[in-house]
C-alpha cells in the first residue's frame, strides 16, 4: 500500500521534472530560432550587395587626349572619353535620346574607373583597352534577376531599348560580376553602385577611440575610489544609486546633453567624432564603473589581507594586486560597454553625426558619420539597391560587434583565475 503510494508520488515527481526540462529547453530553442531567423534573413537579403556588375568598354585614347594626359591627367575629359568609347560600341544608336538611355547603363561614376585604369597603367595609353566599369544600379538588379525583365516596360525602371543593349553586351561577353570591394574602399554616395562604408567604419573607429580614452581611465579611477577608498556613508550610497540609475538612462538624453553642453555652450565642432566620442563616453562610463567595481569586489579579501600584512600601502595593494587581478573583468566590461556604444544612433542624432558625409574623416574633428547612422540613412534611401546594401551594412556592423564580444570572452578565458 505505502509502496504503491511512494511509487505514484515518485512517478509524478519525475513527470514534473521532465515537463520543467522540456519548458526550459523549448524556451531556449525558441530564442535561438528567432535569432537564427533574424540573422539569416539579413544575411540572405545582403547577398546581392556583395557582388557588383561591371560592363567592359573598348577605350582608345586619341593623340590629343594622350598629350593632355601627359601634361596633367586632370586635363583629360574623362566623362566624354567614357561616353564616346561606349557609343562607338553601338554604332546603331544615333538619336540623342537613345544615346542618353544607353549611357544610363553605366554608373555615373564609371569614368573614375577609366581614369584609375590609365593612372595605374600609363604604358597602355596608346592601346585598345577593355576597361570594366560599374554598371548602374538598375542594370545591376536586372542582371541579378531582381528586376523582372518580363514585366511590361512601364512597370520597371529599365526600358526595352536598354535591355536590348544589355543583351548585346551579354552576348559579346562584356558583363562581369565581381566582389564589391568598394563596400569597404568607397565612402557614402547617392549612387548605390558607388556607395561604400569606409566613411562610416573610419568614423566609428575614431568615435570609439575617443570614447575609450575618455571613459576607460575616468571610469576605472572612479570605480577604484568608490570601491576601495571611499568611506561607506550616505553620500557614497547616493552616488552609487545614481551611477546605477545613469546606466539605465535612455541614450538620447546623452545626445541632448551633448547638444546643449558641447555644441551650444562649448562650441565644439558639429558632426565630429570628438563630440560623438565624448557623448558615448558619458553613456559608457556607468557601465565601466559598475563592471570595474564588480570585478574588484570579486577579488578575495585574503589577497588584500596578505598584501596589507606584509606592509603594502593602500595604493600598493590596489596597483599591485587588486587592479591587475581585476583587469580581465574590467576589460570585459569595457569592451561590452564600447560595443554597446558602437551600435548607438540616438545620441549621435542630436549632435549631427546622422548626416550624409562623403569624405572619409582623417581626424577626430572632421565631419563624420558612424556605421549605425549610415545604416539608418541607407534604409531611408528610395533606390531599391539600398535595400540590399542596408542588409550588408547591418551584417558588417554585426560582425564587428560579434568580434568585439568574442575578444571580451577570449580575454576573460585567458586571464581568468581560480582561487
Amino acid at each position: 500500500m505505502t509502496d504503491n503510494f511512494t511509487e505514484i508520488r515518485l512517478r509524478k515527481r519525475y513527470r514534473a521534472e521532465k515537463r520543467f526540462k522540456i519548458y526550459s529547453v523549448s524556451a531556449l530553442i525558441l530564442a535561438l530560432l528567432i535569432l537564427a531567423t533574424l540573422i539569416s534573413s539579413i544575411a540572405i537579403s545582403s547577398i546581392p550587395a556583395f557582388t557588383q556588375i561591371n560592363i567592359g568598354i573598348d577605350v582608345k585614347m586619341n593623340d590629343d587626349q594622350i598629350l593632355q594626359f601627359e601634361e596633367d591627367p586632370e586635363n583629360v575629359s574623362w566623362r566624354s572619353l567614357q561616353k564616346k568609347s561606349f557609343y562607338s560600341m553601338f554604332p546603331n544608336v544615333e538619336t540623342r535620346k537613345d544615346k542618353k538611355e544607353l549611357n544610363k547603363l553605366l554608373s555615373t561614376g564609371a569614368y573614375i574607373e577609366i581614369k584609375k585604369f590609365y593612372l595605374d597603367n600609363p604604358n597602355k595609353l596608346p592601346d585598345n583597352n577593355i576597361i570594366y566599369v560599374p554598371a548602374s544600379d538598375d542594370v545591376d538588379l536586372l542582371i541579378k534577376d531582381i528586376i523582372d525583365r518580363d514585366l511590361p516596360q512601364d512597370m520597371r525602371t529599365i526600358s526595352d531599348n536598354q535591355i536590348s543593349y544589355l543583351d548585346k553586351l551579354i552576348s559579346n561577353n562584356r558583363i562581369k560580376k565581381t566582389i564589391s570591394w568598394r563596400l569597404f574602399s568607397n565612402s557614402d554616395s547617392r549612387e548605390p553602385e558607388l556607395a561604400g562604408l569606409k566613411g562610416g567604419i573610419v568614423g566609428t573607429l575614431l568615435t570609439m577611440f575617443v570614447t575609450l580614452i575618455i571613459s576607460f581611465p575616468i571610469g576605472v579611477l572612479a570605480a577604484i575610489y568608490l570601491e576601495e577608498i571611499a568611506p561607506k556613508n550616505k553620500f557614497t550610497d547616493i552616488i552609487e544609486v545614481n551611477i546605477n540609475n545613469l546606466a539605465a538612462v535612455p541614450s538620447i538624453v546623452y545626445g541632448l546633453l551633448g547638444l546643449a553642453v558641447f555644441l551650444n555652450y562649448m562650441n565644439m565642432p558639429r558632426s565630429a567624432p570628438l563630440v560623438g566620442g565624448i557623448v558615448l563616453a558619458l553613456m559608457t562610463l556607468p557601465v565601466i564603473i559598475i563592471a570595474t567595481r564588480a570585478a574588484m569586489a570579486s577579488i578575495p579579501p585574503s589577497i588584500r589581507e596578505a598584501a596589507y600584512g606584509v606592509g603594502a600601502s593602500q595604493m600598493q595593494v590596489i596597483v599591485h594586486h587588486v587592479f591587475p587581478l581585476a583587469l580581465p573583468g574590467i576589460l570585459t566590461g569595457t569592451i561590452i560597454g564600447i560595443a554597446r556604444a558602437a551600435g548607438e544612433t540616438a545620441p549621435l542624432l542630436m549632435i549631427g553625426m546622422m548626416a550624409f558625409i562623403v569624405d572619409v574623416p582623417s581626424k577626430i574633428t572632421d565631419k563624420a558619420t558612424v556605421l549605425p547612422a549610415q545604416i539608418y540613412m541607407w534604409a531611408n534611401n528610395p533606390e531599391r539597391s539600398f535595400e540590399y546594401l542596408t542588409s550588408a551594412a547591418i551584417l558588417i556592423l554585426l560582425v564587428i560587434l560579434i568580434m568585439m564580444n568574442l575578444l571580451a570572452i577570449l580575454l576573460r578565458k585567458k586571464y581568468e583565475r581560480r582561487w
Partner: protein
Amino acid sequence: MKDVGSMIPNQYKITTSNVNVDYGNKRALHDINLQIEEKEVTALIGPSGCGKSTFIRCLNRMNDLIEGCKVEGKIMIDEVDINSPDTDIVELRARIGMVFQKPNPFPKSIYDNVAYGPRIHGLAKSNEDLDNIVTKSLKRAGLWNEVEDRLDASGLSLSGGQQQRLCIARAIAVNPDILLMDEPCSALDPIATAVIEELINELKERYTIVIVTHSMQQAARLSEKTAYFHLGKMIEYDITSNIFTNPKHEMTEAYISGRIG
C-alpha cells in the same frame, strides 16, 4: 598580572592595556590586558567567537580594514603606542608579519611572493640582494629544498602546507620581529601541521610569535604562555603548563577538559 606589567613596564615586547574592540554596537573584546614576552610563543585559545582572532588583528592594526570596527585602549610594542596618530601603519605592519588561517599566496610566482615585501620596502639594493633574501626566507620557512628548482612556478601550484610555509617565508622576508599567526594550521592535514609546528619551534629563536589556535594540543606543544579567551574576555593568562595542568579559573578548566567550546 596587570600589576606586574605596570611595575616593570619595559620588560615586555607587547603590552596591551584595557583594549576594547567594538564591531558597530557589538563589543567583541572587553578590557584585554596582556603582556607578551620577546622571543616566546604565546598561544591564544578559546572557543569560536571568543575574540582571539580579533585580538591578534589588533596587534598589527588589521582591524582598521574592517568597516565599523573600533579599537580602544593602549597597545604598546617596544614602548611605542601603535594606535597613536604618529605611528605609520605601513612601517608597523612591516615589523609585524602575519600568517592567516587560509594559505593566501599571491597568484604570482613563488619567487615574487617572497620578493614582494622586500621590493616594496626597498630592502634589497640589487637583484642579488633580493635573491639572497628570497633564498634565506625560503630556507628559514623550510620550503627551499622543495621549491629551489621551480621558483618561477605559481605559488598556487603548491600544496596547502607548502603554501602556508610560503606565506611564512613571505612574512619573514621583510625582516619582522613579531609573527602573528591566526590559526595557521586549521586548513592543513596532520602531516603538514607537524611540519609547520616544527618550523614555529625553530622560528621562535628569532621572532616573538603570537599564535591563535583551536587545538589545545598545539598550544601545549608550542607555547611558553597561553591565554584563554571566552566571550570577548581574557579569562586566564599563565605559563602554558600551568594552564593545562593547574588552571586557576573554572572556565579554563571546563574548556581544556572539553566541557565547553
